[in-house]
């Protein structure tokens, strides 16, 4: 036991030394669903810098393209709060409609697309005017939102309808509906826009969809030795910009799956904290930060070595994570 711990410390230290190069410090924001706060971390020191109280039940978060504001789905306040990350002041609200959960920005930085889980709607909001541009009726319990890199399409996944709805960002019409595994939670376009990755929590799979044909290319399943299949519940997914690897948070399996994004095969499982939920790359893609909802911490993955280098205690029930570009 002691020897193991020592090895872990050594591995962690080596990982730290070899992994994150000093000087490339990004700011990492984590929403604490039960703590009603945002924890701010430094990606180089891996220390908590501060904790900012925000609205009730903060879940999905995203930074504006200039890194100045954090948009926060305050689910129990039925609004998206705008946090000035320098002053720590909540400077406004976006009229998201009831129970916002996840959101994504148009690649140009405006508008923002918000899933209203309680209302079967995708709400499109201009973040400057704070006005609703459109409400699109989608399936039951919309959750995951992903905007395509070319800005022409936004996808929303509905958890009870089990679909990825492709919405045209100009006409706000649904152009395609792709049936995926049960309870789809998150939608992520690859950087080249050719694929859409959708996680299905209850089915325990990730569907990779060809965005041209709107057909599923592959359904990726998971098997972790010693973990019963029903505990494998994929939630967050991120695909590296260079298309080499993807990371998938497996919920109560307490693992992050590393997938070879070219062959679409699982490469490795990394042990993280309890009920791992969402994750995000640093802009240099050398680190992945993942939120562990039940152990109240964030695990830091060193991407080159594919090791977990540190767990950082944050607030109560960490949920979403966003990282500055600069």
């Amino acid at each position: 036991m002691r020897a193991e711990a020592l090895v872990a410390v050594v591995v962690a230290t080596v990982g730290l030394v070899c992994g994150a190069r000093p000087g490339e410090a990004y700011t990492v924001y984590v929403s604490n669903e039960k703590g009603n706060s945002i924890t701010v971390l430094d990606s180089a020191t891996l220390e908590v810098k501060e904790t900012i109280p925000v609205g009730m039940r903060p879940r999905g978060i995203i930074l504006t393209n200039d890194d100045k504001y954090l948009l926060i789905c305050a689910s129990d306040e039925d609004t998206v709060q705008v946090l000035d990350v320098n002053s720590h002041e909540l400077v406004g609200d976006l009229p998201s409609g009831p129970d916002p959960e996840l959101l994504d920005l148009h690649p140009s930085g405006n508008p923002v697309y918000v899933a209203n889980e309680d209302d079967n709607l995708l709400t499109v909001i201009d973040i400057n005017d704070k006005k609703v541009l459109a409400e699109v009726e989608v399936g039951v319990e919309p959750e995951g939102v992903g905007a395509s890199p070319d800005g022409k399409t936004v996808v929303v996944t509905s958890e009870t309808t089990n679909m990825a709805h492709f919405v045209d960002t100009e006409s706000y019409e649904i152009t395609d509906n792709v049936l995926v595994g049960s309870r789809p939670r998150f939608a992520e376009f690859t950087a080249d826009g050719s694929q859409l990755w959708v996680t299905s929590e209850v089915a325990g799979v990730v569907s990779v969809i060809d965005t041209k044909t709107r057909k599923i290319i592959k359904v990726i399943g998971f098997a972790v030795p010693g973990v019963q299949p029903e505990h494998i519940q994929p939630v967050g997914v991120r695909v590296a910009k260079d298309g080499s690897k993807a990371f998938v948070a497996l919920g109560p399996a307490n693992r992050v799956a590393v997938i070879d994004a070219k062959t679409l095969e699982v490469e490795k499982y990394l042990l993280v904290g309890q009920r791992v939920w969402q994750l995000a790359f640093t802009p240099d893609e050398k680190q992945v930060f993942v939120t562990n909802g039940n152990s109240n911490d964030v695990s830091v993955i060193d991407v080159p070595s594919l090791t977990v280098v540190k767990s950082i205690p944050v607030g109560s029930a960490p949920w979403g994570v966003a990282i500055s570009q600069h």
Partner: protein
Amino acid sequence: MSQLYRMPFRVCQVGLALLLVLAAPLPILAEMRDEGEAVPPAAAALTNVPIGYLKQEVKKVIPLSRLNVEPEDIGIAGAQIALKDNNTTGRFTKQQFTLDVAQVPIGGDAVKALETLVEAGHHYVLVDAPAEILLRLSDAVKDKDVLLFNVRASDENLREEDCRANVLHTAPDRAMLADALAQYLVWKKWQRWLVVKGVFPEDLAYLDMLRRAAKRFGGTIVEEREYKETPGARRSDSGQQQIQQQMPVFTQGAPSYDVVVVADEKEVFGPYLPYRTWDPRPVAGTAGLQAMSWHPAHEQWGATQMQNRFQRAAKRFMLPIDYQAWVAVRAIGESVSRVGSGDFAKVDAFLRGDEFGLAAFKGQKVTFRKWDGQLRQPIIVAGPDLPVSTSPQQGFLHEHAEVDTLGIDAPESKCKFQ
């Protein structure tokens, strides 16, 4: 015409006024569309899937607490929300679901009501009826393309010696409920149980499952004590005073125990026990801490949205039978959307197959057990105000799926489908 009027059942339009069928040569089933709005005959491309709901009215003992009086629309309200969910998906898949409710009065002819639903094209029918009526219904449509969903009856025989190939059970059986509670009590190290039982067959049936659970998970029943009173008037002016005297005396002199476990399904005396036992002990079973498929304050795993949806529509809290009906209608919807058609054989096979898995706010998919048609689902263990836990509990292991530690497992099943 008058003959039809006197038919011992009636067909009603859900959510709207009761509609008595007077004129048609065959009873016309009024159809509940999404939101109750009338929809013109469907376009050719639409797949129509009519779902039936048969409710047999029964004589009920008035529960001790007015909080536990069953709402008139119990179950039906759950089916309606699921119908709406199915039709939201159906907008995208060009599938339309309808719900038709047949309410059979006490002494009415449930078989006739089912036959009418089937003649009108219903392949899927939810049944809220006592076990013996459910069996009669099952036998009556044995040779037809009909699948029944048992949304209420918790009787063991329906999953065991009297199991039927054309019935799936979304209601948990007593074994599942007793196992779920027992696992929690054992996890809590409340292993010595003082069992207090009523006199009804249902109480004894639950007692049997408590004994089985004690044996399986390591509980000890220190004594079984019978509460002999039969139901009397619920209200009387000095009733509370009397009970305050009676209950401590009734629970006096028991061997050392950790928890009172009550078997009183009709709620004749169980709710009188908490706070009134001779020894200061918690109460569980059919009163106090209870095992159930759904609790109105369950908010884990996205259940908040379900509760909100339900409360907005039904103007009341969602109860276990509402959930059990919701699961049945959603299971049909899920299968029809996956199969891509309303074809009975395909949908029926998909429901029972390995690919079926419904997201039902339980933290894992719910599926149907192949050996007895029982819904495989985690069970909530809850006090009156809040859920306390969800079983299976950690540490109760199973070679395939932990959730199969609840209820009748494959190797012990006596079910031979007929």
